[in-house]
């Protein structure tokens, strides 16, 4: 990257002073434009958060007055607080199960070359190729025939379907440089498969496991489209509750509940970037 910026900005000797003003203007323009785009990117979240502090009884933006009463109301609201707990529980379960399945799958794919490996990798990623609305509709039909609609298991499976591919990919990236002969050495020295995987492979994949589990948590905590099909009156997640309320009402209590989810997402973001660094997490995404 320094080379490119050099080639784009530095002039060859002799023409050194002909264009610097123009190049500076281009650089300033690019930076200015990018910051405008950033404002566009964060505006909706800031709007929701600011709106939840309004003291009026309906959504006002910019907010009028300043009050925490809608946060108090959100916590005291039975449906909102209950579905928040359901969402947190589901997200935790989704993170744990997805990372177990994903870690095992990534190990299986990475330990040696074999025929059909490419096909298998594509197959494991294929749920991401299907629009979530279709995944939800397919699950609705299948779970209806099994009586699994509106159950914790059904909702959890829907969340895992979009979380597991990310878990596999992130663990896979962290295993890219792993030398499986270390695992074989451990085996030859008498370690069982389980010991060799947990004591030799697992520590090397640590960053991928943290990233994958956090991603799985967030994917589940944020998921709304599939859940619209699989949830019901007994099991409902917070995003689904927000979706149903947003359609019909303008109560600031929904904004407050939404702000709480933004706060939880921010905590996860800080956890993942703090432990791994932003570029390492998304480096995998960029070079795929």
């Amino acid at each position, binding site marked *: 990257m*320094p080379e*490119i910026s050099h080639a784009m900005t530095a002039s060859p000797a002799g023409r050194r002073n002909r264009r610097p003003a123009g190049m500076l203007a281009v650089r300033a323009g*690019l930076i200015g434009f990018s910051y405008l785009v950033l404002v566009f990117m964060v505006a909706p979240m800031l709007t*929701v958060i600011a709106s939840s502090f309004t003291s009026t009884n309906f959504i006002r*933006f910019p907010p009028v007055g300043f009050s925490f009463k809608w946060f108090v109301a959100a916590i005291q609201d039975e449906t909102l607080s209950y579905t928040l707990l359901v969402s947190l529980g589901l997200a935790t379960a989704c993170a744990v199960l997805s990372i*177990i399945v994903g870690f095992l799958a990534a190990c299986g794919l990475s330990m040696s070359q074999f025929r059909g490996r490419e096909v298998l990798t594509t197959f494991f990623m294929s749920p991401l190729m299907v629009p979530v609305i279709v995944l939800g509709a397919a699950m609705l039909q299948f779970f209806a025939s099994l009586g699994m609609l509106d159950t914790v298991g059904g909702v959890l499976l829907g969340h895992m379907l979009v979380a597991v591919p990310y878990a596999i990919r992130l663990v896979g990236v962290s295993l890219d440089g792993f030398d499986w002969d270390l695992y074989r050495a451990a085996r030859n020295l008498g370690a069982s498969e389980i010991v060799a995987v947990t004591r030799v492979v697992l520590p090397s994949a640590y960053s991928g496991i943290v990233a994958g589990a956090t991603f799985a948590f967030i994917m589940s905590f944020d998921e709304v489209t599939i859940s619209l099909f699989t949830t019901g009156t007994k099991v409902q997640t917070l995003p689904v509750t927000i979706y149903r309320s947003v359609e019909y009402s303008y109560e600031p209590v929904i904004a407050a509940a939404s702000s709480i989810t933004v706060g939880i997402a921010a905590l996860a973001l800080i956890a993942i970037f703090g432990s791994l660094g932003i570029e390492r997490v998304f480096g995998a995404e960029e070079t795929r």
Partner: protein
Amino acid sequence: MNNSTRERLFRLILLLPIAIFLVFAFIVPMGMMLSNSARHFDPLLGATEGWSAEYYQAVFSDPFYWSVIAKTGYLSLAAVLVCILIGYPVAVCLVLFQGRHRTIIYTGLLAPLFVSAIVRTYGWLILLGQGGPIQSALPWLGLSPMTRIIGTETAVVIGLVHLFLAMMVLPIAASLRNLDPAVLNAARIHGASPVRVYTRVIFPLSLPGVLSGAVAVFALSAGAFVTPAILGASKVRVMSYSIWEQFSVLHNFGQGSVLSIFLVVSVAAVVFLASSTLRSKNA
């Protein structure tokens, strides 16, 4: 049992959980959808024996669904174009600058991905809605203050661009970063001006990144549900909304399945065409 046989067996065991999971949560439900699309449904008896193409006929002979399909494609294309226009300069910035600017841009671009689509859409609903700041600013633009933004295609495209912009910027940035500096230096040494280096060398070499970003944004936009449903206020009819309506409102599983299959197949076709174009260009 020798070591390599044992290792192969162990690999099989490692891959077993994911295989069972995908068969149960993905393959069987999708297969069931495929089979339901070609059966007859009786309101009392459910799916009946034998095959029938009636739902395919019902969907594809109805001009309404063709308009829904066309609108889905057109709105997704609009989102792709806007994402290229505003995403390209941001990608250039990510590659050109180091340090603070770069970190800020990365964070601002990627942090929203951690927020639920419903919350992001809700934010736009407040911003674009009646009495919101953008609605109030309309007279300044010479538009009637009574103009509604929610429920229009513009609102939907704004929401889609916001959701998927990062998926455009990242591949463009990656392709810019992978440029061989020797090529750029060669162009400079041969006397090309910076503008010429950009238009004749950098831009053409970044097109694969643009194409893969375009495919990602198109596929995600065509399948998005929450944003068109809320910002379109049930007035902008796209395929995901029709699928939702068939399953959850009309309980017509047959037609819903036909629409779902059409959506999956057409998105897959676009992805396949684009990736084969990419491969033939790289070869």
